[in-house]
């Protein structure tokens, strides 16, 4: 427990809700808490900040020092809130200087630090502006500068990009990534957007219903989802079955896979890896089943087809293929996935 970085078990009990998540973050690492709304991500972040008390079995250790016994203002943290919460009565500069002032810096020193940080986030020109004159992207950067100004050992970001429009978001996301890369403390980021998580984080901790359901690097999580929620986030079809060497049985349906798995296993494949046929195709060793079309919708430039039993699946096809197949709800089709595109891993 004396390792540098963050080691936390966050336990918060509420009527009808219990959060119990454990994770570690090493210095310089960015961990994203990813999960649906109401999963308890923000609660976890507020617990790290000390804005919510931990139950007795919880603990937070930062650089070997217990943190959960300290009030929020004594924790070496910096926090960026979802809607930034810049103090409306203070200029951008004074917002950023607020933390250093509270931690004992002189007025001049605090302002010097603040000016330097605003410069770093490219807002030197807006130093004197009140928050209501700042655009969403500018406010986000001021909020980041304000959190960094206290030289935190733990940086907490609550949905840092959620309040931005799509265009600004793209730009701010890459800037934020750069700033996080330059930060040498531990960073915990909360988001419900898989793209934000993938781009910004070194590691994902997926939280559902107050518990960690999966953690790992973005590539690992994207390739091997372990819950329906994660599978949907990363755009994969996911099934739970029982492995027997190079075959996994999902219900009555056997899947040939590239990986060898024995016992309980997940099977995952991309909607684009599925081919649809009006009649049963011949030859080639593929995973093949018959299903009814339940619905058709646009999906980017393609068309997404929803298939019903025996296993519910999404299939992405081109509009041209849609026209050829003449698909409409209720029609029976054959679905096929190559074994080489079908991944299996232990459940």
């Amino acid at each position, binding site marked *: 427990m004396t390792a540098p970085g963050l080691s936390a078990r966050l336990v918060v009990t509420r009527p009808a809700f219990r959060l119990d998540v454990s994770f570690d973050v090493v210095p310089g690492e960015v961990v994203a808490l990813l999960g649906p709304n109401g999963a308890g991500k923000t609660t976890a972040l507020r617990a790290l900040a000390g*804005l919510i008390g931990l139950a007795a079995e919880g603990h937070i250790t930062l650089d070997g020092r217990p943190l959960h016994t300290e009030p929020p203002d004594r924790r070496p943290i910096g926090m960026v809130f979802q809607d930034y919460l810049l103090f409306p009565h203070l200029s951008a500069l004074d917002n950023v200087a607020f933390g250093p002032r509270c931690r004992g810096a002189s007025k001049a020193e605090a302002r010097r630090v603040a000016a330097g940080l605003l410069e770093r986030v490219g807002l030197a020109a807006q130093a004197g502006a009140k928050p209501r004159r700042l655009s969403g992207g500018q406010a986000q950067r001021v909020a980041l500068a304000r959190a960094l100004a*206290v030289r935190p050992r733990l940086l907490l970001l609550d949905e840092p990009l959620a309040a931005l429009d799509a265009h600004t978001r793209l730009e701010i996301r890459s800037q934020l990534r750069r700033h996080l890369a330059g930060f040498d403390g531990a960073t915990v980021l909360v988001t419900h957007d898989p793209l934000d998580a993938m781009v910004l984080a070194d590691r994902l901790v997926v939280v559902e219903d107050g518990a960690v359901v999966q953690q790992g690097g973005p590539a690992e999580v994207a390739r091997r989802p372990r819950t329906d929620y994660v599978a949907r986030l990363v755009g994969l079809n996911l099934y739970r079955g029982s492995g027997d060497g190079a075959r996994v049985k999902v219900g009555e349906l056997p899947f040939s896979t590239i990986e060898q798995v024995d016992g309980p296993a997940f099977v995952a494949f991309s909607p684009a890896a599925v081919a649809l046929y009006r009649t049963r195709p011949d030859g080639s060793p593929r995973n093949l089943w018959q299903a009814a079309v339940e619905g058709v919708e646009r999906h980017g430039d393609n068309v997404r087809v929803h298939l019903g039993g025996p296993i519910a699946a999404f299939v992405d096809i081109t509009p041209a293929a849609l026209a050829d197949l003449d698909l409409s709800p209720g029609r029976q089709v054959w679905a096929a996935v190559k074994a080489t595109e079908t991944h299996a891993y232990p459940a």
Partner: protein
Amino acid sequence: MTTTSRSGSARGGGRVVAGRLPWVLVVPALLGLAFLVLPLAGLLIRAPWPTLLQRLSEPQILEALRLSVVTATIATAVCLLLGVPLAWLLARVDLPGKRVVRALVTVPLVLPPVVGGVALLLVLGRRGLVGQWLESAFGVTLPFTTAGVVIAEAFVAMPFLVISVEGALRAADQRYEEAAATLGASRWTVFRRVTLPLVAPGIVAGAVLCWARALGEFGATITFAGNFPGTTRTMPLAVYLALETEPEAAIVLSLVLLAVSVVILASLRDRWVNAA
């Protein structure tokens, strides 16, 4: 300002079709306005205009007016000093029996002011619980002094301040205070540098109400502080005495009180609105 210009431009564009004003609201509103304004008109009509200036220059009137403005202002300062923290306590701290405390705060609103004055005498008077000790320990007696006027006014006016500041505190977004805490601000720093500026409009509104109530205070003042020209005879007391013999003088005094308060409140409001 913004609202006016916005509605003005909307009308100028001729696009917004406002429905007919609902008479169910307009009629009582106008009746209410008339109810509030007509007595004022009565004062204006009956005022002895030809002798007004001469009456105004009487030194007793200026003396009472000065005393009223000074004591009401000091009373407001006292209320701010004690009332804002009290409002904070009620809005932000989990106290046992907070409902009872909140009800107690409003007692001076319900209590007839004369009874409030007697109650003050029973505590701070020469034979009162605290007053006795004040006199023996420090030789301080409060009744019949200008300080007594301030105390009586503060007692009656403080609930107005506490209630409006507590309302402002409850309406303010507490997450700003959390943000300040994560930046290392102690609770006192949070209060001073974040909470206070955020609820400043509510405090100003409360202080204005408080000042106005203190300026018009009569019952508690006359009972607790007595009525002596120069030390405790404020305008309302002077008005009441004048009513005994010269109702016209009473009208003049009332008009003066009215004019002064309107001027001060209006200028305060302008400064406050422009600053915001």
